[in-house]
């Protein structure tokens, strides 16, 4: 495993090189926050800013989120960890960014920590990928060995519940939602402008946070991410009221993988599952 300091050093070097040569105009990485434990996403735009880049075990945010915030055609470099790279792949598949516009700086990440609690990131909640699936430069040694846990293991406790129990479970969780929309804003795949819930013609849902309205919003969002969610867990991490949104996303990802035979964001040459079909797709799914 490569040391975090080493990754930080190489990240700065690469950023400086890319900015100096003019290959990119923005390097998306992490910068200093108010303390060690709170690093912030940071966009270096000048070579001298490269030294402000930091990397430590609390650098969990998925920077792929910021790719779609810049005008199309902006030359960008982005630092990505395992699932972040999958998000970049989905953006490539969906044509939101062009391969030639971006430089992917891969980070083989292990031993990341939770910012809120300072504890190790729970392996059962991650996508289980330590190495980026797509990169131009890998900053450090590839991490060998398979993931210890299946990314879907955690949902078995929900699978085991009856429908009514699951309903009660989600009801309890989603009743807490305050509609701050941090989940969609932190999500690298949620780039719609405007989001369906902000539309007024037609109006899809009320603004007020009632349980059913929250469910309407979240179910639609879960659906919109079906076959696209890369399981980076940003939505859950961003949620101030601790709703385990990633459990639902994981479930949808698993079902889509089973039905459509492809995992989101693994191969840039693939079409995303939901904008694709096979003639031999099964009707039994609908039963």
């Amino acid at each position, binding site marked *: 495993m490569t040391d975090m300091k080493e990754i930080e050093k190489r990240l700065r070097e690469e950023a400086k090189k890319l900015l100096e040569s003019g290959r990119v105009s923005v390097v998306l990485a992490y910068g200093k926050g108010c303390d060690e434990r709170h690093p912030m996403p940071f966009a270096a735009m000048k070579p001298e800013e490269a030294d402000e880049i930091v990397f430590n075990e609390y650098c969990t945010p998925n920077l792929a989120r910021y790719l779609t915030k810049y005008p199309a055609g902006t030359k960008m470099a982005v630092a990505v960890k395992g699932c972040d790279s999958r998000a970049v792949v989905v953006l490539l598949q969906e044509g939101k960014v062009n391969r030639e516009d971006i430089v992917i700086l891969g980070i083989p990440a292990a031993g990341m920590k939770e910012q809120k609690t300072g504890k190790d990131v729970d392996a059962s909640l991650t996508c289980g990928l330590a190495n980026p699936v797509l990169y131009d430069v890998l900053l450090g040694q590839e991490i060998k060995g398979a993931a210890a846990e299946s990314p879907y293991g955690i949902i078995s406790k929900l699978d085991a519940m009856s429908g009514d129990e699951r309903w009660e479970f989600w009801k309890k969780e989603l009743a807490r939602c305050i509609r701050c929309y941090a989940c969609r804003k932190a999500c690298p795949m949620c780039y719609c402008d405007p989001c369906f819930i902000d539309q007024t013609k037609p109006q899809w849902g009320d603004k007020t946070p009632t349980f059913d309205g929250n469910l309407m919003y979240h*179910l639609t969002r879960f*659906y919109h991410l*079906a076959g696209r969610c890369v399981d980076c867990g940003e939505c859950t991490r961003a949620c101030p009221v601790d709703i385990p949104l990633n459990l639902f996303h994981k479930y949808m990802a698993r*079902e889509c993988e089973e039905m459509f035979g492809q995992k989101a964001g693994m191969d840039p040459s693939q079409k995303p599952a939901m904008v694709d079909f096979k003639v031999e797709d099964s009707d039994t799914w609908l039963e």
Partner: protein
Amino acid sequence: MTDFEPRILGIACNWCTYTGADLAGTTRLKYPQNVRVVRVMCSSRINPSFIIRAFQLGADGVLVGGCHPGDCHYGTGNLYARRRLAATKKLLEFAGMEPERFRVEWISASEGKKFAEVVEEFTGQIKALGPQTKFRMERIKTAEAAAK
């Protein structure tokens, strides 16, 4: 629950299922009147939020009809729709809704009889399940209680 008359949203594609429903009517087939059909041009026009929203607004069941796979008027519309509706079904199930409240059927323009049968069967199924109260808006529930 003997006097429970479910309210079912039907969404039917213009070219097959809706025409099939027409045929059922013109051949004077009898089937329950619980399904209110909305016509869309193609099953791929259906935004899954229609279905979610219908349940929120108090539908007891949702029935979606389209052309048989391969027969879509637009060639491939229902092949996309199949994936979308399959994901929707999984979604509702995991949320804890009874998956039986949502049904997709491929019904062609000539299958008036099938349309009548499906509606008959689905209505019976929903009747057996009883009213959908889980997702129904609190406001609707209060209004309904007040009306009683």
